[in-house]
């Protein structure tokens, strides 16, 4: 089929790598997790990732060509054609679609759609190269956006944890951060607390994973601390890919040192000496801000060797994703960091024992890590009592969609959802009423208006209503919206983002999308039955993505029978 010259024999030895490429690769090759920064370096330099770049990287990092090519094709933001980096990519997530994102795509030459870019509290964002612009339909001028909107002071007057100091002057600079209590916790820890003391405080505080899984943070750190194998790692999951979630971006934009201090404390508590902050691609300005913050912390002796003169060493590496929702799943994220195909991993074993490079690793969400310095400063009991009733602590809710005042709110666990919607966020838009809200971004499916009145913001209550709180994204749909179409869009998102590894999700999301787009049997009951059957199979998926897709279709059938009937009628 091919000539002798194309036969590689598995070798890349005879590939000649240009001097300039070697320099580019050389900048990161000795760091841990070098592939993503190297791919970005080529992508930024060339405007796309071409076959010569792939060959050069494959040879130098000793990654098989087909593996590397497969990995590159997995990420939708890596352009594979010349000039691809500069093509405008418009967010067509569920909230932006409410605001005319599709019209913007049509009216902007060469524009492409991209999944939710995490700016649901802003006008429709678009990315050109590494710059974010926002625009309102119909298309007027593009406006450059550097930062996220600052969270408003708590409308309910509740005491906050992660937002407690975020509005302090110059909080995003190292000086401003230290002036408002920043690095007190780390100083106190390295000078007066043993790692197990830190873990004990967190255990007592009942802080749990705020990325959605809700695993007790103290216990996770203890597992990592006790797991054999070194070096250990801390991974901050800042791949905030869930549509309708934008809380981590606000934290990193306005309080970048809190994440860094949280990770450093995690390193101290677990015995890890390296950390990776895995940031989603769609936050280029946040990436710059974090780079600056990390340099500032390094210069001040707050990162690197011998932190605060304590002999404790912790290096932090910023790693940028390239467009793949699945990388928010911790197994995929670890594979992505390691330069592998970003498929979820089988569990067990868990990252606490077999994480980054199969060594003990704590993977924590941005919000969780930001809470840690506050809890250590103010005490476990203080944090616990922030919750209402039996619930401990607070949760950030990214509220967006058809509501008067969208934005990030820090709520006490147990707060009635209606209080947030009506009292804090101003209720529906004039002349409208709430029809539905999606929970956990899109992953929790849709709650109908009755449930919005009755549930409280905590997992047990929302699970009781057949949904989940997850990472805390809530998208509101008022009575002007077509909820079946919203479900179809959600399914299109899951089908686009399904990694393709496990059969139920790969095939099931596609089949549900076809049905929600009008396919399937004509008879309503048969149609419903098929959707429900496919949803059952999706529950067998290897990770949460497929399970969430089933939540969406199931919640549509269960909570919106009239809308469904109208759609099929």
């Amino acid at each position: 089929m091919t000539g002798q010259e194309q036969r590689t024999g598995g070798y890349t030895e005879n590939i000649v790598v240009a001097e300039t490429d070697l320099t580019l690769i050389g900048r990161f090759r000795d760091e841990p997790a070098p592939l993503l920064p190297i791919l970005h370096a080529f992508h930024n330099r060339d405007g796309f990732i071409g076959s010569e770049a792939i060959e050069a990287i494959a040879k130098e990092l000793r990654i098989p060509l087909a593996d590397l090519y497969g990995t590159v094709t997995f990420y939708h933001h890596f352009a594979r054609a010349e000039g691809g980096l500069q093509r405008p990519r418009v967010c067509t997530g569920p909230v932006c679609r409410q605001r005319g994102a599709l019209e913007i795509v049509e009216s902007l030459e060469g524009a492409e759609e991209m999944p939710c870019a995490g700016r649901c509290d802003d006008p429709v964002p678009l990315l050109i190269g590494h710059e974010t612009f926002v625009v309102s339909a119909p298309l007027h001028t593009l406006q450059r956006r550097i930062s996220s909107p600052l969270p408003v002071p708590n409308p309910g007057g509740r005491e906050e944890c992660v937002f407690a100091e975020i509005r302090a002057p110059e909080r995003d600079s190292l000086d401003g951060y230290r002036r408002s209590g920043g690095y007190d916790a780390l100083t106190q820890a390295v000078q007066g607390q043993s790692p197990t003391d830190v873990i004990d405080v967190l255990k007592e505080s009942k802080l749990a994973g705020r990325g959605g899984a809700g695993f007790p943070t103290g216990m996770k750190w203890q597992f990592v601390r006790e797991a054999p194998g070194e070096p250990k790692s801390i991974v901050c999951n800042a791949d905030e890919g869930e549509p309708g979630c934008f809380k981590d971006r606000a934290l990193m934009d306005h309080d970048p040192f809190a994440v860094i201090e949280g990770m450093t404390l995690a390193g101290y508590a677990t015995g890890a000496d390296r950390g990776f902050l895995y940031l989603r691609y769609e936050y280029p300005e946040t990436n710059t801000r974090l780079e600056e913050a990390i340099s500032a912390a390094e210069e001040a002796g707050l990162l690197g060797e011998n932190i605060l003169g304590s002999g404790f060493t912790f290096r932090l590496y910023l790693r940028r994703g390239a467009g793949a929702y699945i990388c928010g799943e911790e197994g995929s994220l670890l594979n992505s960091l390691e330069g592998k195909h970003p498929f979820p991993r089988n569990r067990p074993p868990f990252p606490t024992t077999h994480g980054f490079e199969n060594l003990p690793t704590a993977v924590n969400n941005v919000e969780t890590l930001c809470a840690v310095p506050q809890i250590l400063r103010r005490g476990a009991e203080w944090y616990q009592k922030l919750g209402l009733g039996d619930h401990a602590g607070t949760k950030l809710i990214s509220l967006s969609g058809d509501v008067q005042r969208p934005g990030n709110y820090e709520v006490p666990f147990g707060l009635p959802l209606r209080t947030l919607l009506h009292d804090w966020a101003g209720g529906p838009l004039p002349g409208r009423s709430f029809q539905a809200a999606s929970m956990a971004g899109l992953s929790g499916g849709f709650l109908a208006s009755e449930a919005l009145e009755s549930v409280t913001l905590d997992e047990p209550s929302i699970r009781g209503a057949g949904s989940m709180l997850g990472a805390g994204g809530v998208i509101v749909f008022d009575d002007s919206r077509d909820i079946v179409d919203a479900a179809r869009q959600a399914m299109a998102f899951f089908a686009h983002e399904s990694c393709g590894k496990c059969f139920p999700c790969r095939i099931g999301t596609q089949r549900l999308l076809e049905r929600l787009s009008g396919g399937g049997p004509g008879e309503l009951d048969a149609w419903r039955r098929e959707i429900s059957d496919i949803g059952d199979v999706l529950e067998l998926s290897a990770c949460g993505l497929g399970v969430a897709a089933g939540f969406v279709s199931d919640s549509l059938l269960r909570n919106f029978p009239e809308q469904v009937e109208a759609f099929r009628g």
Partner: protein
Amino acid sequence: MTDNVTLTINEKEVSVPARTLLVDAARMAGIEIPVFCSHPKLDPVGCCRMCLVEVDGPRGTAMMASCTMPVGDGMVVRTNTEQVQTVQEANLAFILLNHPLDCPICDKGGECPLQDQTMRFGPGISQLIEPKRLAKKHYDISDTIVLDQERCVLCWRCIRYLEEWEDKPQLGLFERGNETIVDIQDGRPVDAKTGGNIIDLCPVGALTNRVSRFAYRPWEIERTPSVCMHCSVGCNVRLDSRTHQLRRIVGRENMQVNDQWICDKGRFAHAWVNDENRLAAPLLRKNGKLTPVQWNEALAYIADRITGIKEKYGADSIGAIGSGKISNESNYALQRFMRTVVGTNNIDHRDGGEVAALPTGLPALAELMKPQYGPDPQVDTVLLFGVDPSEELPILDLHLKRGILRGGVKLIIAHARKIELTRYDGPYLAYLPGGESLLLDRLIQAVQGPGMSEDESSIQTAAKLLKESENALIVYGPMAARGDDGPSVRDGLEQLAQAAGEGTRLAYAGLDGNAQGCRDMGVLPDRLPGQFPLEDASARTRLEGLWGCSISSSPGYTYKQMLDSQEMRALFVNGANPAAESPDWSASLEELELLVVTDLLPTETAQKANVVLPALGWAESDGTYTNLERRVQRAPKAVSDPKSRAAPDWMMLTHLAKQMGASWPFSDARSVTAEIARAVPAYAGLTWEALGDQGLQWDAGSAPATESSGGRTSERMPELAADNAEFPLNLVTGTVLYDGGTLFSLTDQMHGMAHGATVTLNPVDAAEFGLDPGSAVTVQSEQGQLDLTVGIDVQVQTGTAWIPESLPGAPVGALLNGSYIQRVKVEKR
């Protein structure tokens, strides 16, 4: 002792080793759990979800993937509930939705796990009606493998095999979600030497065999267990035949030899069996032309001529060349004919008497293997000396790679070429052809030298590895120990093994399929069956008793001597082709009074013969073969051509012996095997029944002790002149898997894979001589010249020119002309 874990599957208590996967535990208990992605020889991935079962846990019953879940003590598992069945049916309905269902024209049809599982676990009727996913239909991903992406269910067994075993992931998963495909990257073919195994692994018809495409339906073929003859590993294979034709070869499991893997040459290169040019009748030269005759006429002619020549010139004017490519029975009969009927020890084979070999081969392949579930290899360090498993012994290559990647094996390579296995970063010790002894001296010195050395050179690293090892194995091949310097190299290697310490063993690995058996049968000028030296009187007496005649004790000519000598008058050549090796030999064969060639095909040597006898090949006759770890294995007759009058060698020789007055007790191949078991003490008891379908290793303890040549002289061959202005490059040659040999080149589909007629140079030398890839050049030595094109590869040492043996139409013998070492120059044509 392994800890056992007891669990309950379907109310049945099962005890299995800890860490067993649930799916395997169920299999051990006789309970089948359907799978697509899971495979007992590959790492689990858990992607198809076909194997979900109910597992009771602290938080209630959950559906778990049994292929990724290790067993736990007290685990309660159910595989037969309604929920499990629902899941299986739903999953199959999903897979079938996208599957093209073109079973009638699919080669997998009839032996397809997807068909079988649909039958057994499927829903019967699927409610779902969809447009099928459209993807790229049948296209070649290599010269031998066809991929149909529509049939692919994305289990990635193929990808995992290439990654976990071959360490050459040439297939990848590209794109994402519903768009996900398995494909090669940028048109680069799957050229891993054992890539064809992915066809056997594919659970659907996505990957099919291009050579056997549409040549069979699985339910119509006859399956014969056999062993592969392409190299000395002796992989177990199955020959699938129909209507007298060999249709397909697949791998067969033998955990002592090849696990279940075979190489692509063994799998695909079998067209020669049914080639239209196969010799089908005896040919006798009449009026200068080879003419078909009856067997009687041909044999009577030979008997008459041999008798005459023997009377006129003596028995030692007659010689025979056997072959490592033919069976023990054929080789045994040939040497018995020469020693008893003709009365000479002029019997040898290529890589025979000219090579300083050792008698017992590798200790055991299993000591080098790392199966998916099993302990690490016993051997912890391997030194390959002048052997290139990637080109010569592909499944040994596979075992070594696996041992390095997963079994902690350390590899040291000494070779004239930077062979493929050097990619594992073990110390690479380069030498020039003829410089083997010199390298060994330095290595022995380093091993014997003081423990701590600042020197970080490869020699020092290699010496350190050997010294630190507890169970090292040094393997050398014929290329490193041929000719006058051979014994000195072998002695040097023995000295090295001794110096490296107690756990170090030395082994010689022949390369041809039956190289070991050929030696065991005594197809050597100075060794009798059982490899006993001629001067061993008791061995001679025993054989004289068995054969009922006396045996000459004077050593015969070696292969090379027979071909070089002017005194030879008659020569039997069985399964060898010396005419293609050297222009001088080609000429001297014509000077013989009688040349009898027994072969499968009209080779260059056969063209010069007075008599050509058509032989049956390995697929067509019963025979035993002995692999490189001296495992004797059976290859039963699998096909027969009713139109052919070809016969097995032992039968021709039996008749010839009879013509010449000797009566041999051979009625069939089995009776020859039975006599071998008497003639070769180590083969005692190795009957066909005892060999079974997995073969038996003969006891290394019963081999005659090797006589060492004693103290090595420090006298070396003179170092090759470093600066030879006229011929600036050292010629490096050796075997490549895909060469121009007939056993390979007759398979048309593989032509594109053949090594081109190239001389490969290091980029530095190519630049110096102003040569580009593809330049047409003439390579000259003092012996002759050859027209080739230039290839450039950093793996070739500077100062050397790499020209493999047996290139199509470009015999390197033209430059060597029977010698082993030459210097060459390369000039543009």
